[in-house]
């Protein structure tokens, strides 16, 4: 079953086409690494899939439904460039807020569990503005995963993570994939992404250059995809 379907996606910023006729499908339980140089259109694509931006042309279906429908959004987890947590709230208040917004039956229990999973239990009542960068990143991961989503959309999730946050994210991603969650992540950290990915997608200047299985060559040589499908 296809969890994500993108048909003929175009996105213009003014006259500039940031995405040009993107077509691809993501099967349930797959992990797609979306690669591309800076400005290739990875973030634009993920923002459209997340319902944060509208495609100029084309159609996106996630879990068979409209991305802006609350029932669809309830099943999607998003980790974007920003950590999307409030500096003036404590760690537990942040997680409890998002647990409530996603309609979880026991917001407090869920928040406590995710603080434990991300190693932040000891600072649960501390204000986020007092946290180190790594702690904030781990809290952002907990915020994105707390409602056990069926689809995870991650925009450069490994960027600027400290080693502990990186380990937390990789472990949680493996756990989510084992559970059957579908993952789409844009990244420049090709090696880390390829270890988890079942599929690879390469975007060159808004065009889809490759969409298919992640092969052994891609794992052994992180630049293999760029060398064979990338533009010079």
């Amino acid at each position, binding site marked *: 079953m296809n969890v994500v379907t993108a048909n003929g996606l175009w996105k213009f910023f003014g006259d500039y086409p940031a995405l040009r006729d993107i077509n691809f499908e993501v099967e349930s339980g797959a992990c797609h690494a979306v690669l591309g140089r800076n400005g290739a259109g990875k973030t634009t694509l993920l923002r459209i899939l997340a*319902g944060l931006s509208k495609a100029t042309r084309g159609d996106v279906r996630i879990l068979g439904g409209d991305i802006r429908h609350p029932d669809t959004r309830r099943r999607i987890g998003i980790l974007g460039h920003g950590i999307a947590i409030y500096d003036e709230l404590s760690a537990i208040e942040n997680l409890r807020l998002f647990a409530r917004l996603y309609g979880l039956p026991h917001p407090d229990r869920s928040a406590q569990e995710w603080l434990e999973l991300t190693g932040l239990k000891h600072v649960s009542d501390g204000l986020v503005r007092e946290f180190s960068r790594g702690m904030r990143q781990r809290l952002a991961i907990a915020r994105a995963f707390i409602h056990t989503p069926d689809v995870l959309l991650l925009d450069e999730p490994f960027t600027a993570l400290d080693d502990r946050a990186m380990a937390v994210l990789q472990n949680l991603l493996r756990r989510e994939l084992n559970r059957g969650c579908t993952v789409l992540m844009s990244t420049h950290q090709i090696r880390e992404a390829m270890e988890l990915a079942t599929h690879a997608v390469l975007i060159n200047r808004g065009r889809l250059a490759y969409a298919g299985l992640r092969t052994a060559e891609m794992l052994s040589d992180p630049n293999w995809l760029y060398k064979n499908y990338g533009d010079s």
Partner: protein
Amino acid sequence: MTEFFRQSLSITVKDLRLEMRSKEALNASLSFALVILLLFSFAFDPSSEHTREISGGLLWLVFAFAGVLVLNRSFARELPNDCLEALVASPVSGAALFLGKALANFILLMALELLCLPVFGIFYNVNWTAQFWNLLLVLALATWGLTVIGTTFSALTVNLRLRELMLPVLVYPMMIPALMAAMELTTHLIAGQPLSADLWLWLRLLIGFDIIFTALALALIEVVLVS
């Protein structure tokens, strides 16, 4: 429906908690309101009959100017760390998000107005308590109107660099009918007059304004947030 209100309430509590911790909007707007009340009291003779006749207008000018400082922060406080994106991507509908934010703004503005009223009474030598409950009703209705318009335009201007300037430019012209009604009603109520048939017309105007703009805002906010 229950979920809609639960989500709205979560947003309201979150916004009030953030404001109580930072106090940035409330401190700025309260200081501004008190300074303007003080300056106006120098400009007009508090003992003259003319000043009492325009007291409702003066009061609402202060509330409108100071209120915009609170409304400006409504969506702007979601910008650090891209929190607005997480809210838009969550299953919270635009209408629930709007209602939650509008309720938080309403509570903050009402608190500001109730703090300003005694100061106004002292500076302008008026007994504003004579028709207190009617005055409270007018304050609530006009403040809700200001809140609805302000919260909508706060969402619309949140990504503009000049949003602090743009918000009042957009809000004040839209608020003219509600401000006219609020000024007229407040002036009479402060003078101790009960709600007469003439004043009921103004009150109906306020109620109609609130209903129309609340419905419009709830219907259109999703488009504003995603685009």
